[in-house]
């Protein structure tokens, strides 16, 4: 039977592999990337924007946070820590709602952020989980909803679900309004629709009567250069028949256009409603209250906190137990305890409060969702503390330096500019990140040779040159000079440093500005490179009913600058209104190559240009049309300075995944990385096929990618999940048909440096703080398997070049790329047996630098690969000192095992003596003498009493020897004088112990052996030292 099973399995596989050997092997996604994994380093200390909070109706430990760009997170411990539960899907979240009857299992998520700032992302529909968030199903019918603001469920019949779709921000759409399902989401009916530019904001249900519904409808539109909130179509509606009919409830409201409306009903009294209005009459803006379920309205308050930025803060929450306690989102958030007549600001926390929820049982406990994450208050909203476990940082841009480990620099939405290490002792902690800019942060660049960092805030209002060592900052933004036109900087203004002239620094307004003295003086080296369309330049009226001229809509500006890494005179510029321009003479002449971009719609935002290392005329440009309602992917390549372009997009990139960035590989021209709104895509064939990278990589918007040159690490700045890194992508360079056809292929690796860093990390706070994953400092063994190894043995070991085994590793067995790490350690020594543990025995000696073989054994086949190991250049020792350290380590290692063998021998002798003592009264005396002599010696060699903590015995020879061994073996410095002196003590003591043993053997031992011999009894059985060491 067994044989049959094996035959069946083996034979079933053969035809498949034969087929694949003949045809072109095209691996996609997880098949290709196998065990390559992304790692997340945060930061989380400033977290990121939250769109919606949702409490559990009965379990006080659980609540959810739906974030603007980082997915859905769940806490099981009242907000101390969170875990992501929506990583496979779009990360821009509008609303999270739990089924009232089945809140542990049934979760609804409406995607697409609803606080419609300029940098807002997009959603792609409605999702439902029926297993607590482990698995999600997309609900058909909402694919084009773009942003869902509300989901309400009838608590008596949870098959009845209402969904409020705010809809498309940048264009007309009929996928808007209020939808109803009566069968748990299988079929839907649009029950309230006003028009293609008016969507549903808040949809709420009366707390007692599920047929009574309220819906706020909002007419709104955003373009790349402006925003318009409000119109004739905005309004507040009520239905009393489960959504079948709707009536406006405006009794008391001012006439004319309305903007965004927030509405809430008091959970404790369904007659009390609060609405926050945006109107044409400033004096009527703000808070309105109805005490008769919407029949009439009274205006209560138009303070700043109630009227500020309606498109961003239209959220009102009523205390579930007290209808007079009302909280309004806003710049600081406001709370009223007198039914909305007066408000005071909420306590200090990150500004921009988007949602507030009360604890289900205790109104002193309030959770708040802000531009800087989730906050908790324990005293009714006066003091707030931040949740430190939500790595939702929203990068606009990142860059890297060449330090070891390299640093990552970047700017964040509403959270300034930062840099932090890509690895740090104990993981990348909050305290590892350094602030280098205020306001909104965007591009942050390190000077190529000096310890200087450039950073900026919105619209280049300030550009900073920060001298890190001296902690000195200077503002250096280009300023208008005599005769200059007014400068137009993008909200996210482009900067670039030169690879050729270290002090050269570029900035883009509508002109390209160049400085050769790190920003002290500037020269304009271009004409206006934009379309300079005046229709897109008046932002003073942007905002609609409430003017919102933050600068975020500044348009007809340069957005990307790319100096060729091969020639300082070649500079590319891309503008937010669709122009690609290039100079080949350092700015004397400019060539507008926009007309050559076949297939790119006119005026499509040039989001990034990458000047190639593979040819002076080679460049990539990506285009983002989403602010014109065009979510298609556009990426073009030119090899002739923009005269002709080829699209490098294939149809295996998902819909709506518009492109923000591209990164080329420095060695393999066909290897490219594409940052899209829905995650990272990789091509190994120049763009003919793209694979989505999903190994620990969420479908998050990737705004910027950099490839760190020394490590080949791919570093991504995401807009919602911080910095995500894929370590060493070099294996992808080697993938071609020949490699893919091999059963096993080891990827080339450069020599590894055995890092000698040995500082302290201090893990304080790690219980509830996000800690970023480090890059392993070990040797990275990368190999490709054509097929996953599931049946039969597969092993991996490290051997020296003479074939001696040095270490055993556990091989990965994925189809595709596999990564195994080896920490350069050999086996730890075998310690003498004792009553307690000698911790010195956990130290493994490191191997000397040199060449080593990796032997992979798979069934009967073996595969070999050679590794080169180097010593750390920062070593404290000379080579001779290190060799001495290695020699002493070896000496001590041997001594530790010699002692283990001696104790073993003693134990074997004692066992025999004991046997005689127990079974042979005649021999008891001689055996006992022998036993006692051995026991006296054993007690001096190893600990025989106590425990591993404070009831521990005094250390004996084993413990002291083990400690000296561990100290020498784990040291990165020469063997110290103190260690050598200690060695003399221990060596002498051990020699004496061995002598004692020899003396016992000669005296009591000989007598005992003679007795055994005389009585035809078996001598004690003692394994050879080699066998002893091999045994477990």
């Amino acid at each position, binding site marked *: 039977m067994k044989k049959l*099973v094996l035959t069946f399995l083996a034979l079933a*596989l053969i035809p498949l592999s034969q087929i694949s050997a003949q045809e072109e092997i095209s691996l996609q996604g997880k098949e290709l990337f196998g065990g390559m994994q992304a790692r997340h380093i945060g930061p989380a200390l400033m977290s990121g924007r939250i769109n919606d909070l949702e409490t559990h109706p009965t379990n006080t430990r659980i609540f959810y946070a739906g974030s603007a760009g980082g997915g859905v997170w769940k806490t099981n411990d009242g907000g101390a820590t969170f875990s992501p539960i929506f990583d496979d899907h779009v990360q821009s979240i509008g609303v999270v709602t739990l089924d009232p009857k089945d809140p542990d299992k049934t979760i609804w998520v409406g995607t697409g952020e609803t606080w419609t700032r300029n940098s807002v992302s997009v959603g792609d529909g409605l999702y439902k989980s029926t297993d607590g968030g482990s698995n999600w199903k997309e609900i058909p019918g909402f694919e084009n909803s773009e942003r869902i603001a509300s989901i309400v469920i009838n608590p008596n019949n949870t098959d009845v679900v209402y969904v409020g779709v705010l809809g498309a921000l940048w264009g007309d759409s009929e996928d808007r309004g209020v939808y109803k399902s009566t069968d748990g989401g299988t079929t839907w009916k649009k029950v309230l629709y006003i028009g293609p530019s008016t969507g549903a904001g808040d949809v709420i249900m009366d707390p007692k009567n599920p047929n009574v519904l309220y819906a706020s409808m909002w007419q709104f539109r955003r373009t790349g250069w402006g925003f318009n909130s409000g119109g004739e179509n905005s309004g507040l509606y009520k239905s009393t028949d489960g959504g079948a009919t709707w009536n406006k409830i405006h009794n008391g409201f001012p006439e004319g256009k309305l903007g965004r409306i927030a509405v809430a009903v008091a959970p404790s009294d369904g007659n009390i409603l609060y609405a926050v209005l945006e109107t044409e009459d400033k004096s009527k803006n703000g808070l309105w209250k109805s005490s008769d379920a919407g029949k009439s309205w009274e205006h209560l308050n138009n303070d700043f906190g109630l009227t500020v930025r309606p498109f961003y803060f239209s959220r009102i929450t009523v205390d579930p137990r007290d209808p007079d306690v009302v909280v309004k989102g806003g710049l600081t958030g406001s709370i009223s305890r007198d039914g909305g007549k007066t408000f005071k600001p909420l306590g200090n926390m990150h500004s921009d409060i988007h949602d507030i929820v009360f604890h289900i049982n205790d109104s002193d406990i309030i959770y708040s969702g802000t531009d800087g994450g989730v906050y908790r208050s324990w005293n009714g909203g006066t003091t707030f503390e931040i949740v430190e476990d939500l790595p939702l940082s929203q990068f606009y841009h990142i860059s890297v330096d060449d330090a070891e480990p390299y640093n990552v620099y970047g700017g964040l939405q509403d959270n300034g500019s930062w840099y932090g290490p890509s690895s740090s002792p104990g993981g990348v902690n909050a305290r590892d990140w350094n602030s280098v800019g205020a306001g909104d942060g965007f591009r942050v660049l390190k000077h190529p040779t000096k310890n200087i960092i450039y950073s900026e805030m919105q619209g280049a209002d300030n550009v900073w040159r920060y001298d890190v060592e001296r902690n000195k900052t200077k503002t250096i933004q280009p300023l208008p000079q005599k005769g200059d036109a007014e400068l137009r900087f993008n909200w996210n203004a482009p900067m670039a440093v030169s690879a050729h002239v270290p002090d050269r620094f570029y900035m883009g307004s509508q002109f390209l500005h160049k400085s050769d003295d790190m920003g002290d003086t500037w020269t304009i080296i271009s004409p206006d490179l934009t379309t300079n369309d005046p229709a897109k330049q008046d932002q003073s009226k942007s905002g609609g009913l409430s003017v919102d001229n933050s600068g975020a809509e500044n348009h007809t500006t340069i957005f990307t600058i790319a100096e060729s890494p091969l020639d300082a005179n070649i500079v590319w510029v891309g503008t937010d209104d669709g122009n690609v321009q290039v100079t080949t003479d350092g700015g004397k002449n400019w060539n507008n190559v926009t007309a050559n971009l076949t297939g790119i719609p006119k005026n499509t935002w040039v989001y990034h240009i990458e000047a190639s290392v593979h040819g002076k005329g080679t460049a990539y440009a990506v285009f983002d049309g989403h602010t014109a309602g065009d979510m298609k992917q556009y990426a073009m390549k030119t090899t002739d300075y923009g005269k002709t372009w080829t699209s490098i997009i294939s149809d295996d990139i998902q819909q709506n995944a518009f492109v923000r960035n591209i990164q080329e590989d420095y060695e393999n021209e066909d290897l490219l990385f594409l940052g899209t709104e829905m995650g990272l895509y990789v091509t190994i064939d120049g763009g003919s096929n793209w694979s989505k990278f999903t190994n620990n990589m969420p479908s998050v918007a990737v705004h910027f990618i950099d490839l760190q040159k020394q490590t080949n690490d791919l570093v991504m700045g995401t807009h919602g999940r911080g910095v995500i890194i894929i370590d060493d992508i070099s294996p992808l360079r080697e993938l071609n048909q020949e490699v893919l056809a091999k059963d096993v292929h080891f990827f080339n690796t450069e020599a590894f440096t055995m890092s000698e860093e040995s500082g302290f990390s201090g893990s304080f706070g790690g219980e509830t703080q996000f800690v970023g994953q480090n890059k392993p400092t070990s040797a990275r063994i990368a190999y490709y398997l054509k097929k996953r190894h599931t049946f039969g043995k597969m092993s991996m070991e490290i051997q020296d070049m003479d074939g001696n085994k040095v270490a055993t590793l556990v091989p990965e067995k994925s189809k595709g790329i596999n990564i195994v790490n080896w920490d350069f350690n050999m086996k730890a020594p075998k310690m003498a047996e004792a009553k307690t543990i000698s911790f010195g025995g956990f130290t493994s000696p490191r191997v000397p630098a040199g060449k080593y073989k990796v032997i992979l054994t798979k069934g009967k086949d073996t595969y070999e690969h050679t590794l080169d190991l180097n010593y750390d250049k920062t070593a404290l020792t000379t080579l001779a000192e290190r060799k001495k350290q290695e020699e002493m380590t070896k000496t001590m290692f041997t001594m530790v095992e010699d002692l283990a063998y001696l104790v073993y021998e003693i134990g074997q002798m004692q066992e025999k003596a004991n046997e005689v003592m127990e079974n042979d009264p005649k021999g008891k005396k001689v055996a006992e003498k022998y036993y006692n002599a051995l026991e006296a010696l054993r007690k001096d060699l190893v600990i025989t009493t106590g425990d591993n903590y404070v009831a521990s015995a005094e250390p004996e020879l084993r413990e002291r020897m083990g400690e000296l061994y561990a100290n020498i073996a784990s040291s990165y410095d020469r063997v110290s004088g103190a260690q050598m002196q200690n060695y003399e003590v221990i060596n002498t003591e051990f020699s004496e112990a061995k002598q004692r043993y020899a003396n016992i053997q000669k005296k009591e031992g000989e007598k005992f052996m003679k007795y055994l011999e005389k009585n035809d009894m078996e001598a004690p059985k003692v394994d050879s030292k080699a066998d002893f060491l091999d045994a477990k």
Partner: protein
Amino acid sequence: MKIARTLFIAMLLVAMAPMASAQTADEIIDTYFENTGGKANWEKIKSIKSTGKASFGPQEFPFTQYMMEDGRMAVTISLQGQELTPQAFDGENMWGTNFQSMQAEAQDSETSENYKKNEAKDMPDVFLNYKDKGYTIEKMDDDTIEGTEVFKIKLTKNPIMVDGKEEESVSIYYFDKENFVPIASETTINAGPQKGMTTQTVFSEYLEAGDVYMPFNITQKFNGQVGQSITIENIEINPDIDESIFEMPEKN
């Protein structure tokens, strides 16, 4: 003979092709047991003794695991002459050696009760007669894991108590489409400081253990990073086991 065999293979392949496209969860489980020795052979297993090495990063410990059909279980490791029992279940209580005092201590009763409800019933295989244990299975959308196309089966065990509140106990198992054996499973950790995080267990090196095939390598991962890896060197089916190993020793 040769012709007959070729025919037999051809028939098998034909039979397999449509199977792979429309499988129910039960068909997948049945095929798994069939391909690994047959359900009858699985049902004959009353006790298992496995020996091997467990590695946590650079540290490696030889271990022995004993499992009984009635759920009793013990894992022992030998460390510098000390026999430790990091985890055991005596039929009623989970217990283990406290590393500081080297004394046996009972785990909290919730942990024991939870073990009794589920894991104690999972010898020799979690899916064997799963209905009798009160478990349910459900086929989810196909997926790719370990670079390999897989069937995805959701296994819901009996509800457990976590810090005083009842919670579901759900795992996802991934069965290789080619040979129908599980190559990975995922579980959301439902207690302790890592509650809410997903842990992945990867199964490989299926080898004969008595009359059935079992994975000889089991590796646990968090976010793709290896936590613990167990490499089994030998599995004895229905060996003689000194049952005192399961009993919690008195403190001395």
